[in-house]
């Protein structure tokens, strides 16, 4: 197990697939068909490989596992280092699971430039997995920002009518945040003399420097996650992106921010994190309530789900900054469940969009008469998004609220209103799309889910119920790492003077 570079294999296998697709020549139809198959098989194999990590993952240690190390730029003390722990491992699995589903979801609705499309997705998968596995800050940054290139192309080429605006907004917003993070990374390097993440996790940065570093990282992660008020790129990007693009964006890219907070901001800048917790709580609560209200008023299905994502991510940031075991585990769990639920919801919108070519809610109504299977699946994920007990959404939100209540009951109470509003906009959406009389003529002949679509939804359905009923295996994976994270933060805080306040607050 130590000899096989499994993480590098996982990361770069999709790239190999992409190069393979690049070399396909011939008739346009043949190229398209081969590209689809190569992409599907590559991502499937990658998924199976990633299961290997799960099987061999040791849940009893908080250390990084499957670590790989290679000299890269020895002069600068920067090396290529990969590894996963309980925080990052599940995100790798989420990525490898969703990529084949994205390829399948694009099987028929992408008919132009199929070759380039599949290449973009495989390259994107490489960058996403690399981002979660990187154990060197520079390597992390490279993957983190490189994601922009395929995402920009995917939205810009295969997107909707305002795709140029949306792709530019996505690109420039995220770039602006990331470059500040780059400077922070360099400042950390100047202070610590290394970019090795495990070393940096135990390095104590001076409190004043922490503040600046925290703010720079915040600029990047807040845009990525996204937090109010820098969330405005997200609805645009989601609306214009092709279905699979929205899926990846919501399910994986948004998690970069949450992962970043957990991996860097909290453990590396604990003093600053404590200092800025009120800011995070305020922004998150505004996000939860405000974007839920905005979602209520949306006429576009994708936009509605996009705003609901912002609200759900607000929960994640609250959970992460409670600095309690429940809160942080809840945040991770919420990210995973949101990854599956929002992916499914975008796929659900994609199904009817492929048939009717409209995302307007008013263009639909009474679909239950023609599409019973579709309605059932829609209902399941709608309820999971609301956070109904028995679905994945419930566990995460519950844990976060427990964590928040320990720290500050007001935060918990205000965040909980988001749950009610969430139920309101999702049920309202569901009623308008699914129920009622079928009056629109173009809906009369709409077909129910076909086998391909059922195959896409099946794993997501299983997971969302599994994660809702039996969360044990998932929580076990993250538990030791999260506890270790908190122990480290608390030792760091105890060492410094300003930490005393939060220790009492957390113990309340």
């Amino acid at each position, binding site marked *: 197990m130590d000899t096989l570079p499994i993480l590098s294999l996982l990361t770069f296998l999709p790239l190999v697939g992409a190069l393979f697709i690049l070399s396909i020549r011939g008739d346009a139809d043949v190229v398209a068909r081969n590209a689809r198959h190569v992409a599907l098989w590559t991502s499937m194999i990658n998924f199976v490989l990633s299961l290997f990590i799960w099987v061999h993952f040791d849940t009893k240690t908080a250390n990084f596992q499957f670590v790989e190390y290679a000299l890269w730029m020895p002069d600068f003390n920067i090396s290529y280092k990969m590894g996963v722990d309980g925080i990052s491992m599940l995100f790798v699995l989420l990525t490898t699971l969703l990529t084949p589903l994205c390829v399948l979801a694009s099987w028929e609705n992408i008919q132009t430039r199929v070759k380039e499309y599949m290449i973009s997705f495989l390259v994107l998968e490489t960058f996403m997995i690399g981002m979660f596995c990187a154990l060197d800050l520079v390597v992390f940054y*490279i*993957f983190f920002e490189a994601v922009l290139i395929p995402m920009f192309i995917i939205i810009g080429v295969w997107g909707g009518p305002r795709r140029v605006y949306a*792709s*530019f907004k996505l690109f*420039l917003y995220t770039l602006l945040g990331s*470059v*500040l993070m780059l400077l922070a990374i360099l*400042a950390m390097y100047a202070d610590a003399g290394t970019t090795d993440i495990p070393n940096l996790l135990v390095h104590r940065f001076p409190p004043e420097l922490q503040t600046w570093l925290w703010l720079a990282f915040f600029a990047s992660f807040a845009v990525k996650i996204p937090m109010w008020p820098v969330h405005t790129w997200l609805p645009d990007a989601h609306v214009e992106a092709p279905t699979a693009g929205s899926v990846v964006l919501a399910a994986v890219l948004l998690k970069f921010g949450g992962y970043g907070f957990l991996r860097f901001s909290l453990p590396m800048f604990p003093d600053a994190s404590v200092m800025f917790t009120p800011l995070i709580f305020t922004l998150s609560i505004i996000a939860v309530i405000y974007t839920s209200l905005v979602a209520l008023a949306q006429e576009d299905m994708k936009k509605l789900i996009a705003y609901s994502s912002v609200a759900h991510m607000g929960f994640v940031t609250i959970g992460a900054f409670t600095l309690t075991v429940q809160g942080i585990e809840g945040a991770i769990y919420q990210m995973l469940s949101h990854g599956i639920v929002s992916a499914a919801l975008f796929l659900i919108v994609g199904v009817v969009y492929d048939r009717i070519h409209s995302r307007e809610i008013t263009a639909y109504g009474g679909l239950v008469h023609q599409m019973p299977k579709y309605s059932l699946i829609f209902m399941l994920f709608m309820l999971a998004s609301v956070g109904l007990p028995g679905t994945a959404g419930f566990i995460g939100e519950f844990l976060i609220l427990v964590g928040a209540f320990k720290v500050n009951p007001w935060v918990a109470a205000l965040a909980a209103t988001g749950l009610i509003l969430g139920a309101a906009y999702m049920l309202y959406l569901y009623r308008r799309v699914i129920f009622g009389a079928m009056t629109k003529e173009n809906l009369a002949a709409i077909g129910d889910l076909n086998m391909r679509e059922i195959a896409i939804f099946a794993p997501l359905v299983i997971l969302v119920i599994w994660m809702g009923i039996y969360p044990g295996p998932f929580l076990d994976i993250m538990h030791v790492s999260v506890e270790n994270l908190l122990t480290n933060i608390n030792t760091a805080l105890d060492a410094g003077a300003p930490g005393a306040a939060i220790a009492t607050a957390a113990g309340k």
Partner: protein
Amino acid sequence: MADIPNIVPALPELFLGLSILALLMFGVFHKTGTAALDAKTARLVSFLSVITLLLALLLAFTLSGPRLLTFENMFISDTFAVYCKVLVLIGSAFAIVLSQGFIERHNMARFEYPILIVFATLGMMLMISANDLIALYIGLEMQSLSLYVIAAYQRDDTRSTEAGLKYFVLGAVASGMLLYGSSLIYGFTGTTNFDLLAEHFHSLHGEANIGVIFGIVFILAGLAFKVSAVPFHMWTPDVYEGAPTPVTAFFAVAPKIAALALFIRVMIGPFGDLVADWQQIVVFISIASMILGAFAAINQRNIKRMMAYSSIGHVGYALIGLATGTEAGVKGMLIYLAIYLVMNVGAFACILCMRRGDTMVENISDLSGLGKTHPMMALGMGIFMFSMAGIPPLAGFFGKLYIFMAAINSGLYGLAIIGVLASVVGAFYYIRIVQVVYFEEPDEVLNKPISLDLALVMTATGLAVTFFFVYPKPVLDAAASAAKALFAG
């Protein structure tokens, strides 16, 4: 001192000089008078010029050892010089390769063209190896005069002649300032030799006479003109736009690298102890160039003009390295120059492919739909643009990484923050090209297939830019030892 100076350190230059004379003779005697045969001669001379440059490259490599001085200490050869010469020679060789098709189509195929480029290259090498203000000036003028002529080489074209004339007049002013600054320095210190100047200022512990400061400011102004840094950048867009496209490609790489190398050598060498006096000027030039390069490029329709502003911006980034005044900064700058060279050669190879029928097209909108009509060229263009925007994992990112690393290490936080913010603004116009190439529908199709030599240049540079991250060590090591040589003495 022996009667005959040691010529070994200057072997590449001597070889280049003698080759130029030989090629000139060959061209003159081979010339027949009929257009077709002349073109053939030109092609042959071009080919031989590239060979000459490559041989000079090999010769330069053999000198990458200790610091050697010759010609009454006016000429220096060290690893820094070798590194920069290698870049310049590669840039010039690429420029000749890129030019060949263009000059044949545009009735410019005369054998003097490649020879002028080699001549300019010789000037650049002398600049890089200058260890004396006089030697510096001679090298600079030798380069500049050749460049003025090449800019106006398309003599039937008013834009080209205008570009040449503009370049000449403004360049002469800049040279004058440089010379005036040199004379002030000489007047206040009594020497023009870099080593003696360095000793002189070192003995004063960085306290310089006000006259010397004036001299440095004048020299800085002259050099800023040559590297087209703000506020001495005004000539750049006009000259880039007006000059024949392959000449623009040449201008964007080799002379710029040589001038920046000279900039480093002068500032770090003789004036290294006065860093406190010139640092703020360089910081200002750097910030102004980055910001102007980023904002002014946004509204450009002509791709050559856009590349002009882009190069102004890049000079701004490179100067961050110099502004630190440290070895790490110079090292970052040298890495940046190497990457800049490759990116620009590639981008100009793409621009040179923009032809419709017999005419070159230069508007950004002419690239629309390239992704559909020329997938490989579009891929190349995309790679170069993302790389220039500094998006990882492409090479351009690493250039910026080392520069900013040096800036942060030296505590120049303000400069670094302005730098990254400008790079976001700059990213806008780079990705706008990607937008035009990939997101828009083609209207009029550009010529295809593209010529083989351009395709090869594009492929080579594209691969280098994309896969730089896999094995960056050779470039990093070379830059490290080059920067070290500069700070050893």
